[in-house]
């Protein structure tokens, strides 16, 4: 009997890999091992509707438990893999159990970067459902909330806390919000949005200590905080792969087929560093990136499932991402890093616009604020490799959708 596919990691990438294999007709055993107790669930709502109490816990799981039985997908939840032996093609659990594999998918994700300050144990982080539950519990009685880190998670947490009527301060060490993901135009826009909603934002501010009911800043000032939330980035879980002798850079190193140097071991999702044809941060295309998004997790899972059933097609999906903050739905398509020119389509005042990014005249990416049509059109344009000019992008009478339709089929970026 074949050992089949073993997937380490019960997040969205791991769950999707298992489902995708079955959809493609893979009929050998599939085993999904996760270190959380719950079967795979959705993480995006944890910082949004779930935190606000608008989404019931029963609705978080990606699939009903009966689904896994029906599809003959083995679930080993609450289990930790401690070693991989690539030569014997087997792995060992903390419990001592040894599990063989034919193909191994590492969907091990990332963990929150801990705050390196005094009193850090008082801060709560958000990645798992258990962590979301802990925040929900304390958020109820908190009056004042300090959020350390002005990235996506920090700002979603700030928006949720503010919606619940809390006094909210965001403390960001850098000079602007979401600096890793968006250019200054959008950082400034979100700064204004949060401020207009009554969130205090401190930029260039460091934290000296988290006290029982306050945060003491580097400049000596304090901000009252019954609850301190931290979102200062993640560390990919690369240790298991590294111990197995696999290459590590910004994440677990894989090729365009999402394969490590071991042809039977793949890495996908938040933990994987791979060449992305849409990345042009420096001179060339196809730079190596590690992305943290649902899109990346799901599309990479499908790509690996296809390799395993014998198709040979590289990972080429358009990166996209979304965040909801107050009445803003912010959607990103493509990778804007490295752009040398940007134009705005629509009206920033009315909070409905898109920013289009170019590098040496070449269209790279667009960020959309409450402009769903632009976002979808851009995803299609990028997938088809269709160029638009800055002049076209700015011109609202230029129909982006028509540009998509006019694309000759089969072109690649």
């Amino acid at each position: 009997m074949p050992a089949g596919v073993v997937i380490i990691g019960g997040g969205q990438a791991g769950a999707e890999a298992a489902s995708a294999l079955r959809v493609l007709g893979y009929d050998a055993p599939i085993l999904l091992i996760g270190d959380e107790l719950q079967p795979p669930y959705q993480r995006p709502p944890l910082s949004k509707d779930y935190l606000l109490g608008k989404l019931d816990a029963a609705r978080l799981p990606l699939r009903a438990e009966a689904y896994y039985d029906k599809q003959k997908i083995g679930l080993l939840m609450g289990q930790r893999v401690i070693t991989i032996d690539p030569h014997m093609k087997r792995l060992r659990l903390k419990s001592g159990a040894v599990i063989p594999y034919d193909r191994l998918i590492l969907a091990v994700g990332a963990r929150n970067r801990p705050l390196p300050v005094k009193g850090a144990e008082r801060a709560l982080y958000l990645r798992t459902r258990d962590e979301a539950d802990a925040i929900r519990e304390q958020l109820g009685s908190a009056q004042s909330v300090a959020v350390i880190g002005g990235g996506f998670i920090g700002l979603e947490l700030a928006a949720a806390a503010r919606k619940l009527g809390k006094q909210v301060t965001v403390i960001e060490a850098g000079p602007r919000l979401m600096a890793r993901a968006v250019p200054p135009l959008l950082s400034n826009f979100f700064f204004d949005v949060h401020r207009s909603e009554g969130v205090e934002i401190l930029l260039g501010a460091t934290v000296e200590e988290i006290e029982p009911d306050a945060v003491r800043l580097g400049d000596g000032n304090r901000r009252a905080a019954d609850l301190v939330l931290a979102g200062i980035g993640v560390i990919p879980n690369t240790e298991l792969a590294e111990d197995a002798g696999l290459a590590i850079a910004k994440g677990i190193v894989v090729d365009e087929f999402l394969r490590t140097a071991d042809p039977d071991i793949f890495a996908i999702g938040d933990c994987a560093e791979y060449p992305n044809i849409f990345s042009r941060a420096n001179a060339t295309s196809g730079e190596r990136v590690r992305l943290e998004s649902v899109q990346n997790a799901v599309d990479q899972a499908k790509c690996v499932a296809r390799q395993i059933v014998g198709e040979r097609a590289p990972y080429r999906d358009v990166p996209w991402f979304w965040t909801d903050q107050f009445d803003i739905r912010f959607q990103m398509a493509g990778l804007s890093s490295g752009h040398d020119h940007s134009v705005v389509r629509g009206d920033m005042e009315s909070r409905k616009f898109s920013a289009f990014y170019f590098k040496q005249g070449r269209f790279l990416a667009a960020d959309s604020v409450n402009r769903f049509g632009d976002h979808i059109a851009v995803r299609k344009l990028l997938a088809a490799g269709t160029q638009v000019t800055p002049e076209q992008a700015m011109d609202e009478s230029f129909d982006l959708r028509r540009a998509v339709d006019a694309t000759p089929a089969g072109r690649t970026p």
Partner: protein
Amino acid sequence: MPKVTYIAYTGESQTIDVPAGYSVMEGAVRNGIEGIVAECGGACMCATCHVYVDEAFLDRLPPISEEQEEMLNATAAERKPNSRLSCQIPAIPELDGLIVRMPDRQT
């Protein structure tokens, strides 16, 4: 619990009790009904939970939001007048007995 009948492109049909308040997409995905993908988990971001709603129920559906309108233009299969994203259809008592048909592809 409102009953929803899902009819696959191949003609196979399944009827599921969908808990009130859940979306028609959730009813399908949780039970592993093939043909509804929902990569984004119901955030109206991916257009992979596209269904054709039985004509008899069309006037009982909530109005199409601007967001859904745009996403419906991005479905993999042909958009028809009765196309909807199933993540945007709540299982409510008025829709008990709802019938949806899945397209041939979602991506």
